[in-house]
């Protein structure tokens, strides 16, 4: 069993207008083991994406206190590519578009980055894996020939993120709002992809606004984030309760003083 631990994590970001550092995460504690599915829910602007980007190692986010540990080893000093090779994966909300590089080239490079130098994956093995991954996601093989995310629709991008997940087979995957912008059919397909990699050697952290996706990917634990930290943890029924009462209900119950960015329900 492997473990991803977030300990008292404080994170600040430089405001692009004022150039001042602004604290977004104010002490997050979270432990995920392989074999588990965690979901983080919370209102807009509460730091959910900051948490996922910080775990992955986006240089825009500055850890001011606390630690992120993978199997007991701190990741804070590791660059994003080292963290990725150590087993982390982030399905991004807004993946970059890169013209001139095909999906296929990119996937091969990503797989080869995890193999010893001078021993790239045999092309036949690669294609076999690719074909089965494409089939799981109802994707056609021309997707592999297209330039990386270039001109992809919202749904195609999400599928492409999960295609990478299937090919790279990380230990821990963070899925940042995988459900946003997907219709029901696409949501089911993408969930099928995620469920396919589930198992005792894989742990997931899902970031979401709605419980919709939790119908297809069943969480073991649901965490609610507000004001830059986790304020409540429960089982899947917590998501149902949120759907009924909204975040403001929980905020008032817990007596937390935070503004919800969007208008209150």
């Amino acid at each position: 069993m492997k473990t991803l631990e977030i300990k008292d994590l404080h994170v600040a970001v430089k405001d692009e207008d004022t150039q001042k550092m602004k604290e977004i995460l104010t002490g997050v504690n979270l432990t995920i083991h392989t074999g588990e599915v965690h979901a983080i829910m919370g209102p807009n602007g509460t730091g959910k994406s900051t948490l996922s980007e910080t775990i992955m190692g986006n240089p825009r986010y500055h850890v001011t206190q606390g630690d992120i540990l993978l199997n007991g080893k701190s990741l804070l000093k590791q660059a994003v590519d080292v963290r990725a090779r150590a087993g982390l994966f982030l399905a991004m909300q807004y993946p970059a578009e890169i013209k001139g590089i095909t999906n296929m080239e990119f996937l091969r490079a990503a797989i080869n980055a995890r193999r010893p130098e001078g021993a790239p994956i045999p092309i036949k093995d690669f294609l076999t894996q690719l074909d089965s991954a494409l089939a799981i996601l109802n994707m056609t093989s021309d997707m592999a020939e297209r330039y990386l995310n270039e001109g992809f629709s919202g749904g195609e991008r999400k599928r492409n993120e999960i295609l990478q997940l299937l090919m790279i087979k990380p230990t821990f995957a963070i899925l940042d709002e995988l459900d946003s912008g997907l219709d029901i059919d696409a949501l089911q397909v993408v969930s099928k992809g995620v469920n396919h990699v589930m198992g005792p050697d894989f742990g997931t952290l899902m970031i979401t606004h709605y419980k919709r996706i939790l119908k297809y990917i069943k969480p073991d634990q649901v965490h609610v984030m507000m004001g830059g930290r986790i304020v409540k943890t429960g089982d899947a029924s917590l998501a149902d309760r949120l759907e009924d009462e909204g975040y403001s209900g929980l905020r008032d119950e817990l007596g937390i003083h935070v503004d919800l960015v969007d208008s209150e329900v």
Partner: protein
Amino acid sequence: MSEPIMKKLPELGLFPNEPAWFTDIRKTALKNYRNTKLPRFAKVHYEDWQLGELMTQVKPSIDQEMDCSTNDYILCTLATALMKHEKLVEKYYLQKALTTLTDRLVNFSTAFVNAGSFLYIPANTKLTKPILLPENSKTKFEQEISHNLIILGEGAQATIGIQSNGAGTAKTGHRISEIVLEANSHLNLINLDDFTAAQPIYLNRQASVGENAHLNWSIGSFSDGNVIAEMNAELVGRRAVATINNAAITSGKQTQGMNTRVTNFAPHSVGKIRQRGVILDESRLVFNGIGKIIHGAHGTIAEQENRILMLSDKASGDANPILLIDENDVEAGHAASVGRLDKKQLYYLMSRGLSKPTAKRLVVRGFIGELAKEIANPQIRQSFQKSLERKLPNA
């Protein structure tokens, strides 16, 4: 032990049994050479590269042996062509593509031309296999001053790949190429420049595109030394089409300056320039893209895009689009940019485990490799990509 370099031309020219008309052109050019100026390459300083200067004694050319003609086309050295196909050479040499000798370098190259190749594809010959021109030999000349002719007769079709990696043993190289597309012909031309670091090179490539003819021209400017290059396509026939795709990488301390020009002379002609450059180390790259539409060339299209990616703080580059339009009924557009690596792209690639050098390489290859994908012939495309890889920094 240096003896003074003889700048005088021998009375009978430099090629064996050189025709008098050819020698006369030399003499005119030599006269012009003495009172013309170096050509202008905006924002490129090459005055001290010693271009347009003789580095070795003028002596008769020994470049007369090669003849690789087939049943379908003529391919031989210029010297051979002057002996075996004099009328054809006379019809095209400085007659259609390059017609005026205006600057010092073109006059120098014409006066002292000592090498070159001649490729003639007769009318209606449709070649299915590409012609891969042998690079000019490294040892044959001391100083290559060459003039190359490629002619496609009416309705001819061909793919031609030319790889260059040396221009003699002297300090400089001069190479003029004339490319003539007669009506309804179709040419895919790929120039792969891999000149070594030791020699400043002057390239002057002039294409004339006739009625309804198509020129797809890809250039890989991957040399290691200083280069100035004129790449020019003139759309002289109605509905002529020319696309120039130029991919350039500069590294070390080299400078590459390129004037890439398409001129629409005829109505309904279409000219496109796409240039992509990557600048490394302390090098300099300048793209001057020139789109010109002559009065009366109505219904024409002139487009250009010049993009440069700068990968080093010590590098410098310019992308200058110039549109000169003397006609109202046209479609013209240009885009130019000089930028740095996109941090979001790098982060994305690295988040999948690619090391920074590998990620950088992929982004750069993607940026410039888009042009490689335009090369239809797989063999030539592969050579192109190989040259590109060689020129990129090692991971």
